[in-house]
């Protein structure tokens, strides 16, 4: 491994972490969404700084090519994040459904009350 690719790996991991932490800081991403990206970025940084850890872990699990372990873990993280997003989307849809129903019912109620008020004020006169 050349020194350039060593540095490139570390920089990529740092960039990812920086973007995620900055978004978290500015309130553009909530903790529970950021946590996966922080875990992934930290892992990437760790492996980038100490590539020997990757070889050791691959040997431990029995993965022939250490780089395959990187692919496996990356895909697994992406997969889990996608599932989390689908589930959050469903929750949001069901909440917006409830809000839509409530807003339509309130609107109807308001127009019924307006009619009642108009009727009562006519009777007053």
């Amino acid at each position, binding site marked *: 491994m050349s020194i350039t690719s060593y540095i490139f790996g570390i920089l990529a991991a740092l960039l990812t972490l920086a973007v995620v932490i900055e978004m978290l800081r500015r309130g553009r991403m909530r903790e529970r969404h950021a946590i996966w990206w922080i875990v992934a970025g930290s892992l990437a940084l760790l492996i980038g700084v100490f590539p020997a850890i990757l070889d050791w872990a691959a040997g431990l699990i029995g993965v022939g090519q250490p780089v395959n372990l990187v692919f496996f873990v990356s895909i697994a993280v992406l997969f889990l994040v996608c599932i989390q997003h689908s589930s959050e989307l469903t929750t949001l849809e*069901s909440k917006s*459904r409830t809000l*839509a*129903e409530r*807003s*339509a*019912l309130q*609107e*109807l109620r308001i127009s*019924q009350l307006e009619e009642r008020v108009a009727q009562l004020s006519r009777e007053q006169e």
Partner: protein
Amino acid sequence: MPYALSDTLIVMPAFNEEESVAAVIAEVHAKLPGASVLVVDDGSLDATAEVARAAGAQVASMPFNMGVGGALRLGFQYAVENGYQVAVQIDADGQHDPGLVPALLAGLDDADLVIGARFSGEGDYTVRGPRKWAMSVLSTVLSRVVRTPLKDTTSGFKANGPRAIALFAHSFPAEYLGDTIEALVIAGRAGLRVRQVPVAMRPRSGGQPSHNFVKSAVYLGRAFVALLVALMRPRTALKETATA
């Protein structure tokens, strides 16, 4: 004693039905004196809401299109909040004859949910191909779930008694086909008594249902997915409230 029409809410989900909705409302007023009509305008882009209001119905307008399931749950909530005993679902396209509502109401004497069913002797409704297979498998499975033989499980002409309204006001599904298939599964598992009453359907003003093979096959697939998912879901309990 059947429920009175004054305790009955006619719920009419409508999406872009400005041409037919006024006539259906007028027919309901003529044939069902005393019944209230709630049109749920499901995010229509045309003048459905205005036309329905002018025809003398209460109109609740969804801010965007939610599908029949969303519109119906709103109707059940309205029924709960305004003290209606019965909610009858009627299509805004003129397919269901309001004159048959008293027959459905009479069925509520010994049931919580009454389905106005085609194929049960009345009318000449026929289907072929995958749609027919889908419907027969659906009725076999759903008949077991609700513990009573049903011939037509995809009818949108239903009368809901107080227990059905209480259940559906919080748990009516919004998914595709949820208003027919999953709603029956939820009802059956919550212990509601379901029964069918034979009715004749009129042709819709918007044309006949499709007999295209591919479309029917897609319908079959989606119906089975809807059924499987409905059966896998945890059951929804009916919260029994103390009623006088």
